[in-house]
């Protein structure tokens, strides 16, 4: 009898915890920034922090010759990452990608830390951070990020996956607050 009472109490506690977690999750979604939900245009900014350029392998042993990327060497890779991120936004059709941050509702800042660069590809085990900031059209502008995600999943999660994650979060928030 006593054991079954304990079991019931434990089950009740479990239910309460589950209910509270669901509530907390809902609350989190409810607080998704209105500035993002009401936004229509977005500017993409890509920032490569560091980066190692790997040249073509000239020998069959040891690492390929490499050096730290100069600002000029980073440029084509920044453009490449920009077009990859833009492709996600275009595919998702939620925001229109524009080029002038002063006339945009949002700014999506993509920061990629120390990637490997070579033969026109961004690769390696790198970390990234994605921030969504208010654009120039905001009535009460400040630089505080509206949304942010980071990943050090060592190439298991690409920055474009996290741009897609932003869209998922928006979709969930809109679903909860039609």
């Amino acid at each position, binding site marked *: 009898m006593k054991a079954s009472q304990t079991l019931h109490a434990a089950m009740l506690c479990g239910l309460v915890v589950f209910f509270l977690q669901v509530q907390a999750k809902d609350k989190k979604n409810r607080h998704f920034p209105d500035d993002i939900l009401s936004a229509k245009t977005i500017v993409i900014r890509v920032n490569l*922090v560091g980066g190692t350029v790997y040249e073509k392998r000239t020998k069959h042993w040891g690492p390929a010759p490499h050096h730290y990327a100069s600002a000029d060497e980073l440029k084509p890779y920044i453009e490449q990452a920009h077009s990859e991120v833009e492709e996600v936004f275009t595919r998702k059709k939620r925001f229109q990608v524009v080029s002038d941050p002063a006339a945009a509702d949002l700014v999506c800042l993509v920061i990629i830390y120390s990637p490997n660069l070579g033969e026109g590809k961004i690769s390696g085990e790198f970390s990234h951070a994605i921030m969504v900031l208010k654009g120039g059209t905001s009535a009460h502008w400040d630089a505080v990020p509206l949304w942010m995600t980071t990943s050090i999943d060592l190439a298991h999660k690409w920055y474009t996956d996290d741009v897609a994650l932003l869209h998922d979060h928006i979709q969930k928030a809109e679903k909860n607050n039609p």
Partner: protein
Amino acid sequence: MKYDFLKIRFVKPMLVVAATIAVSAAARAAQFRSEIYQATNVYVMCRSVFDDCNEPIPKSFQEVFAKKNRWTLVDEPAKADLILVWFQEESTTYGSRGRSLVSDTWRFGSLIVLKGGSTPDWSAVPLYVTAGKFIVPVIQEFYDEVIRTAPPFMTPSALLPPPGKSSTGVGRMSANDYLARGRGWRQRGDLDNAIHDFTMALRLKPDFEEAKIELESAKKAKAAADCHYQLGCPK
């Protein structure tokens, strides 16, 4: 006659060249954008969807800020000159080495510096990004570098010498000027220069009570800093 000729033909151009070299050297030494050097108020925040960031300004950060005295923490982003966004991530991977299971934990902390205030400046978003294994040393290193490389002409007005006075000390300064400049140095975290200026103020006006108090306080702070704030250090 000979000296006049030298003054006109050589000394003045040489002075101009020397001044140009000094200014360009200072500009080269400045590794951050001017907004970072001129900042006095900072807003610190932690943002991540995976981490709730219950403690946006951990105690260890507050200690870093309290020690340096250059930046004041504010709680409104519109009032801040800089917004410091930080995150700390950790990821563990598992693998096998022979018959044993091995795990490897990656830690990554980063600081992203954005321009604060209520007017956007799109020329640099972000102003600066730095990263390392743990976030507290990353912030500490960034702060130290800002103080170390700050050229005098990019220092916040509140930390500069009184109007009309040169930061190099050229010109006749009164005891009050030395006191004000000493306070500026103190605020900037430069205790050696602060002690020097308070001492100069007292030399010019030996009964200057305020300078006495400031000198005593700066000396105590210097002793504590030299002792690395350990237990038993002078407080």
